[in-house]
């Protein structure tokens, strides 16, 4: 692992999020293009982030009960009534 690889490893999230200054981003990009291990590692992190950004299946709350809905609506209406 070279110093440049280390730099990629340390700044990769900011690089992928577009949060690095342009010059730093360009420097990392130049290194990545010529470094097979970095290409592999960047791809693995990018895919891992994509997985996290997607919705996990089979996860959702049960249906809102009429009682829960009433509680929420009552709270909202009260807030409206008390609004100056």
């Amino acid at each position, binding site marked *: 692992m070279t110093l440049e690889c280390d730099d990629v490893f340390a700044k990769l*999230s900011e690089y992928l999020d577009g949060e690095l200054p342009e010059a730093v981003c360009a420097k990392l990009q130049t290194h990545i293009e010529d470094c097979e291990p970095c290409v592999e590692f960047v791809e693995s992190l990018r895919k891992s982030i994509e997985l996290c950004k997607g919705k*996990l299946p089979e996860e959702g709350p049960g249906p809102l009960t009429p009682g829960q809905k009433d509680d929420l609506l009552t709270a*909202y209406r009260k807030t409206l009534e008390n609004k100056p």
Partner: protein
Amino acid sequence: MTSARGDTKIMSNQQTVEVDLARRLSGGDVSAFEPFVEAIRNKLFQYSFMTCGQREDAEEVAQETLLRAFQQFDQLREPEHVRTWIFRIARNFCLMKRRKSVFAPNPKQELSLDELRPSFRDHGNGLKLEIADWKMLPDQKAIAGEMSAALRDAIRELPDLYRSTLLLRDMEGLSTKETAEVLDLTEDVVKQRLHRARLAVRQKIDAYLMKGVPA
């Protein structure tokens, strides 16, 4: 490889819908009530479930958060920040719930960058990374079953502050600034925690892909 996005926060369609509904609710439009609950409740549940570890706790947090939000809707000064505002409420309920729960995930509190670094092996013709072949991974829409459980476990096993950062940034789509506001952190700390959280999840999924067992 190009950067994933620029510095400017671009709202997703879903966020635009939420902001519009919040604006209507702030103006007293009751017809926005149901679609708002529908749009937000699932997100609150998912965040709370990953944080608290129990379905029942997550359902309670989602309801308590919505109740508090409706009780204080007149305090939402900027509807465009409705997501930040509501996740701050959810975060506080989750913290209270976690203090009382024996089921809440509670792994060690810090992640060291060195532990998350991939290893290399000499294959005779130079050093190669010892990681799985991620090109073989199906796209996000295709993940299901074991893979989805591995991802969920990897996120749940993160220390709380890292998990919260990753959930808000990557799963809920909040910006670095918004995440910092929800968690009362600086933007630099959010970036650092997000990176370590992502590396830790990557490492767990990598181990799963290579051996089918957690790292």
